[in-house]
């Protein structure tokens, strides 16, 4: 039985739709190949302008089950690294890392991203227009990316991604084609903790006790340490609800042999929303003064500067 006459409009539409579906499923995504995935360099803005900052995105699309790593990769692995080749006067800032996920459930736990993730990189064009040449021109932005892609096994990859943007003197206009991508990537970034939060961390010999007063009951929370070798990545984080917040017990890493002054990282509450924290570590649990609403909390000074 024939479903439709080959020359009918409906049939052509069905065939086209089928072809589109087939292509969408079968064709590789745009971008440069990396092991078990692709990488594309995209811009949030249509052009760059001296004296302005624009944002680039390193958009990774990975095959199912494969992952890349957060700035602190956890027990194993390695974060992606970029070496930029940029016109004089243009400078790339550090990667803005999205809130990671715990990967692995056994004795080895890593922190990273699966499927689809975009790393945002701010790009600053120097104020002196002269550095980019007189008048309107174009700037080639190239990144040499080293990335470790893992599932059960790990494959190191290298990719060179490039983008040419016009240089104009007027403020950079957003690019509608990438707006959605950047909106999603921004949503995945950890945000500054609300000003009314009170977070304190106490050194309790073999563990750290993190207490967060957030002004509402919280059902679940987990902590991702920004720096390596501070807490046991694979150890369960004991969660206890306390009035107006929660307490997490974080087992210290065996590699942590000296006291630390501050604990930095991302607190993830139920719903996958990440909050940046950077709090001083007090010496003992007894030294904590909960009645005063916890110890000082600093979010503004938080820096994602590279650890190595």
């Amino acid at each position, binding site marked *: 039985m024939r479903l439709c006459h080959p020359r009918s409009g409906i049939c052509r539409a069905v065939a086209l739709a089928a072809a589109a579906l087939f292509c969408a499923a079968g064709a590789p995504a745009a971008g440069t190949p990396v092991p078990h995935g692709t990488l594309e360099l995209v811009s949030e803005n249509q052009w760059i302008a001296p004296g302005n900052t624009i944002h680039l995105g390193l958009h990774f699309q990975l095959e199912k089950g494969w992952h890349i790593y957060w700035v602190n990769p956890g027990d194993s*692995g390695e974060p992606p690294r970029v070496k930029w080749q940029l016109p004089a006067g243009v400078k790339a800032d550090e990667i803005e890392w999205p809130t990671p996920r715990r990967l692995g459930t056994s004795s*080895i736990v890593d922190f990273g991203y699966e499927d689809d993730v975009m790393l945002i990189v701010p790009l600053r064009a120097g104020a002196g227009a002269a550095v980019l040449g007189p008048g309107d021109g174009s700037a080639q932005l190239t990144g040499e990316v080293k990335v*470790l892609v*893992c599932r*059960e*096994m*790990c494959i190191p990859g290298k990719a060179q991604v490039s983008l040419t943007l016009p240089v104009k003197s007027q403020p950079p206009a957003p690019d509608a084609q990438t707006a959605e991508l950047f909106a999603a990537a921004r949503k995945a970034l950890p945000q500054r903790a609300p000003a009314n939060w009170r977070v304190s961390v106490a050194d309790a010999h073999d563990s750290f006790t993190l207490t967060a007063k957030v002004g509402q009951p919280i059902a679940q929370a987990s902590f991702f340490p920004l720096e390596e*070798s501070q807490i046991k990545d694979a150890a369960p984080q004991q969660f206890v609800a306390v009035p107006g917040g929660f307490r997490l017990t974080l087992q210290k890493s065996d590699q942590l042999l000296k006291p630390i002054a501050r604990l930095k990282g991302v607190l993830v509450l139920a719903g996958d929303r990440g909050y940046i924290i950077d709090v001083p570590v007090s010496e003992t649990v007894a030294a904590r003064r909960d009645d005063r609403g916890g110890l000082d909390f600093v979010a503004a000074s938080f820096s994602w500067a590279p650890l190595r």
Partner: protein
Amino acid sequence: MNRSTLCRTLVVLMLCAVPLLIAAAKVGDSAPEFTTTASNGKTIRLSDYRGKYVVLEWHNNGCPYVGKHYNSGNMQRLQKQWTSQGVVWLTVLSSAPGKQGYVTATEENDYLTKEHAAPTAALLDPTGEVGHLYDAKTSPQMVVINPQGVVIYSGAIDDKPTTDLQDVQGATNYVSLALEQAMAGKTVQTPATRPYGCSVKYRD
């Protein structure tokens, strides 16, 4: 259930629980004892080497971080350098059957020959028992045990956590540093680091 059955059950339960209660060894602890078979067919007991320095090297031949140190000849060089000075060098293979890095004794012996590797022995640990005793997270994680049987170093092989061959040169090798300092009667300056590499491919 009569009394003796109950006792037997309790004993069995306690025996089962004991291995779970032993925390993995860390720097400053006594190195946990193990008995395991090497690829050369010999039975290796850690306590047989009391009085000597022992290096444990976690290995997985498919891991690119391990590849960096074998393809550059760095690992073989270290093995030869330190075994010639009386250090016992044990390569440990904790990959479970079916997982990356799992090999039979014959395959491992072929690999050692092909790579001109020179460990004292390559230990077959497909159950991951030795790996878990030392809380080995990655290949190539390294552990150094002193002649008194105390763990004096656990962590990375060096300070360049990458897969690039050119990073071997100029890297600070933590294993050599620990051995040199301990042999000179000094305190090991860097006794614990994050062990970089591929996760150990345990059964669980």
